[in-house]
């Protein structure tokens, strides 16, 4: 920790050499006048006020104050005076010698003395180290520039207030807070209230990731952004720049954020320097036993600087427990500290965030999730062996204390399992107050005008009316009175009403997207557009997903739906892609990959063939094969070699063939009029043009096209998703063919007379399919479902509609026609291709 210069010690050196005569009590010297050090002394005095003579050294120039309230001081909600815990009078009245602004610089355990910066040396019988933590400063260039501070003590708060004042004079200053954890966000909040323009830079993808899961982190981020803060997640600081003082922060991706103040709040490290120099045993913190005794029986330690049973803490609650055990030990009572479970609350007015215990789950853990989008609420309780082991609450933290209590006591929640997520009032008080635990009975007991669906204002009576009028399924209820049709949080209630009214006659609804939601694919697609949703966590929150981060069915579907709805805007989530699409190659049964470069319309040339031959030899590919899609497939490439293989193929002008994608695969062609004696049009040329237009697009499923030069149809166009058969007078277009598991010949769409028209109809057809089919539904089953007449009404009969569809497709293509191989070959996402490098342990290295 940096000590503040220019502050003179409050007591002078001479005074301290005088030991009050006749005081034969043991001398307890405390290093650190912070929350733990002072509390330990308070606990001691409460047990046996006269037993020890006490001296406290503090590095700060203040009496003991409540550090956690620095945030409200920064925010202007409290003054420093209001957060003082013990005044000077208290120290005096308790007979404590307080030495402020004089940090201890050395401990001599043999002589049992401590020496402070002023030179003052004091003898101790017992020493208590309570030095707290040092803020971690990330080692980037510019970290030492004036204007770069941490958020730990009153001095930091004063610096921030001064910067805000200076900013005001200059018409509003800018600040950057590095670190989106509890401290960073409280600093950002305070600075915003003080009129600064604040940007938070956070390395991880979610805010407060140690306390919150992705869903709650997303909610928090949205709320802070709506308060005017700029939140950059996944942002890595490269450098703090400025000449003589801070002028801004540069990120690794090159972005620059101007700022006159930079607050580093990336974490804390136990302050162990002094203890280490004194030869005490140190792990991550100063090692202590259950009575806070270090490896030297005369030396104790307490607070954030210690490590107990492998744990270090960064919150106050554990300190209180530690201080009790410590004082018990010093007064010969032996209770012993057994570690603490902690909970966190964010102290930002109007933002309720709570987290406790191990909400990250693990083996045998079950998640109970409640999302109420209308109220902006997310609650997640993690249960293991019928006991609550963790909780994350956002928006409604009223029950935080109750969950935390159940968690600490380890009480079984088996009896209230189904209701626990609704909170104490519902789960316990409702039960003891005579209300039944059965949710069905609870719904039955509601009055007719009780509101069931908050989003659409639908009462119980209205829902019952619909059911009696013939709505026999969830879907029918949704369609007739809109209950449960928006956010879905009342789905359970509506289902219970159906059960109550119809008993066994409830009709099962259409299949839901997956087990994480009560919505169908169509519902989800519609709501993404209607509610203008922009990310996977947002969809999961607004549509009440019942799992924290979905499953392998819904994640890829949501990723596609968002990509389709927001071309050029949505950032693809690679972790929601199946392996082949993430690796841009086809995984084989032995874990290697096959690589299929695009050959436009099945055409190739010596340069491409040579490059392929070279790759096969250079990377010792065991096989190369002509595919059923008119191109070459190179087998047996290792994931670490993929980028190099692609670089070589790129050099010969080849791009990915997307043989792995839910996307355009191939455009198969025949030779056509250029060579074939029967050819009527240039089928090869049109095939190449079609492939150039459509490659790279993401679709609900794979998509294949073929162009045949005459009705002999050598390119098998009538079993493709989109097929063109050339005739003398033009081009016959047909759709919905499939040559796979269930063979289906295409449906005739229409005939057009020019290539331009053929291309426009093709683009329009693909776009309706992209916008309306369900994920993993190929064109054949989609057309069976919606009917070819519907497709014709959109693509053939509606001229303006067709043009608009084609335009939307081409717009989307303007963002997706980038060769994914070229990107990877140039170093994008190397982590996906390389093994982690273990650091070789010392003794191993020596043995080699």
């Amino acid at each position, binding site marked *: 920790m940096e000590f503040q210069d220019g502050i003179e010690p409050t007591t002078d050196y001479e005074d301290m050499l005088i030991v009050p005569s006749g005081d034969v009590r043991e001398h307890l010297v405390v290093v650190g006048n912070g929350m733990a050090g002072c509390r330990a002394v308070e606990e001691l005095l409460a047990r046996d006020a006269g037993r020890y003579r006490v001296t406290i050294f503090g590095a700060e120039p203040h009496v003991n104050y409540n550090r956690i309230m620095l945030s409200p001081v920064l925010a202007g909600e409290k003054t420093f005076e209001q957060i003082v815990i013990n005044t000077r009078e208290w120290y005096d009245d308790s007979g404590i010698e307080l030495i402020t602004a004089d940090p201890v610089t050395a401990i001599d355990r043999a002589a049992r003395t401590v020496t402070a910066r002023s030179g003052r040396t004091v003898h101790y019988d017992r020493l208590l180290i309570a030095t707290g933590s040092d803020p971690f400063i990330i080692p980037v260039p510019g970290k030492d520039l004036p204007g770069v501070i941490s958020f730990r003590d009153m001095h930091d708060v004063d610096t921030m207030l001064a910067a805000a004042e200076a900013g005001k004079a200059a018409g509003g200053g800018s600040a950057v807070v590095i670190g989106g954890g509890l401290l960073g966000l409280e600093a950002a909040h305070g600075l915003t209230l003080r009129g600064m323009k604040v940007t938070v830079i956070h*390395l*991880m*993808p979610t805010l407060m*990731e*140690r306390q919150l*899961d*992705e869903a709650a982190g997303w909610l928090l981020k949205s709320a802070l952004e709506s308060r005017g803060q700029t939140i950059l997640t996944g942002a890595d600081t490269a450098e703090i720049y400025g000449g003589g003082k801070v002028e801004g922060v540069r990120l690794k991706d090159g972005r620059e954020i101007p700022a006159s103040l930079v607050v580093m709040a990336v974490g804390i490290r136990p302050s162990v320097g002094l203890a280490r120099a004194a030869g005490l045993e140190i792990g*991550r913190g100063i090692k202590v036993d259950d009575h806070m005794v270090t490896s030297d029986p005369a030396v104790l330690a307490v607070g954030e600087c210690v490590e107990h049973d492998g744990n270090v803490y960064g919150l106050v609650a554990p300190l209180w427990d530690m201080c009790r055990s410590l004082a018990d030990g010093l007064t010969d009572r032996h209770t012993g500290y057994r570690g603490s479970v902690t909970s966190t609350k964010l102290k930002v007015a109007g933002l309720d965030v709570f987290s406790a215990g191990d*909400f*990250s*789950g*693990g*083996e045998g*853990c079950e*998640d109970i999730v409640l999302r109420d989008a209308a109220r902006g609420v997310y609650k997640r309780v993690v249960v293991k062996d019928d006991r609550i082991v963790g909780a994350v609450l956002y928006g409604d933290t009223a029950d935080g204390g109750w969950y935390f209590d159940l968690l600490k006591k380890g009480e079984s929640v088996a009896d209230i399992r189904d209701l626990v997520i609704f909170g104490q009032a519902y789960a316990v008080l409702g039960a003891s107050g005579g209300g039944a635990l059965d949710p069905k009975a609870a719904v039955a007991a509601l009055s007719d005008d009780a509101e069931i669906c908050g989003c659409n204002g639908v009462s119980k009576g209205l829902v019952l009316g619909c059911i009696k009028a013939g709505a026999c399924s969830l879907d029918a209820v949704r369609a007739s009175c809109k209950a449960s049709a928006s956010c879905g949080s009342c789905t359970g209630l509506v289902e219970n009403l159906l059960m109550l009214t119809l008993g066994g006659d409830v009709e099962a609804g259409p299949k839901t997207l997956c087990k994480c939601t009560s919505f169908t694919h169509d519902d989800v697609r519609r709501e993404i557009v209607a509610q203008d949703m922009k990310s996977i966590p947002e969809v999961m929150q607004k549509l009440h997903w019942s*799992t*924290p*981060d*979905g*499953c*392998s069915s819904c*994640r*890829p579907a949501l990723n596609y739906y968002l990509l389709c709805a927001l071309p050029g805007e949505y950032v693809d989530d*690679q*972790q*929601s*892609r*199946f*392996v*082949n699409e*993430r*690796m841009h190659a086809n*995984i084989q*049964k032995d*874990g290697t990959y096959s690589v299929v470069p695009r050959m436009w319309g099945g055409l190739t040339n010596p340069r491409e063939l040579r490059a392929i031959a070279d790759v096969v030899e250079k990377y010792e590919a065991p096989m190369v094969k002509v595919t059923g899609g008119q191109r070459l497939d190179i087998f047996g490439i290792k*994931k670490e070699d993929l980028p190099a293989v692609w670089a070589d193929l790129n050099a010969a002008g080849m791009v990915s063939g997307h043989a792995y994608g839910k996307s355009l695969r191939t455009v198969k062609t025949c030779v056509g009029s250029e060579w074939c004696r029967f050819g009527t049009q240039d089928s090869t040329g049109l095939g190449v043009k079609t492939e150039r237009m459509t490659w790279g697009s993401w679709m609900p499923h794979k998509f294949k096209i073929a162009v045949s030069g005459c009705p002999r149809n050598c390119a098998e166009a009538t079993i493709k998703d989109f097929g063109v058969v050339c005739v003398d007078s033009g081009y016959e277009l047909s759709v919905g063919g499939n040559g796979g598991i269930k063979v289906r010949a295409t449906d005739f769409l229409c005939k057009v007379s020019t290539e331009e028209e053929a291309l426009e109809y093709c683009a329009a057809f693909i776009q309706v399919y992209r916008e309306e089919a369900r994920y993993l539904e190929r064109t054949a089953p989609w057309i069976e479902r919606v009917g070819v007449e519907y497709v014709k009404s959109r693509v053939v009969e509606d001229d303006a509609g067709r043009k608009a569809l084609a335009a939307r497709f081409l717009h989307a293509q303007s963002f997706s026609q980038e060769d994914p191989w070229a990107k990877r070959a140039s170093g994008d996402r190397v*982590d*996906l291709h*390389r*093994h*982690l*490098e*273990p*650091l070789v*342990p010392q*003794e*191993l290295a020596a*043995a080699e």
Partner: protein
Amino acid sequence: MTDWIDIGTLADIPQRGARTVRIEGEPDIAVFRTGDDRVFALVNECPHKKGPLSQGIVHGHSVACPLHNWNIALASGEAQGADSGCTPTIAVRKEDGRILLARPEAMKDAA
């Protein structure tokens, strides 16, 4: 006593993803990072037909095998649902921001 190998930081592994560690003479090990930043390590082989689990979709505390979509619990290595089989797990822990992997027995003897 377990020996631990330092394999890097949390940031080296994509969230809801995995990376592999290759140790001479050992099967590849897949080190997973979940959506809530927990870290698990399994032998990189599906109990079904040895699919490389590191390449699967990570959801909750499970991974869906990239070959035939079995779901494997990351904490226990057990196949979930109707499928049965188990992949060996390897102890892993986080310390001071580093990820430490328990050193396989065979390698210990060699050292």
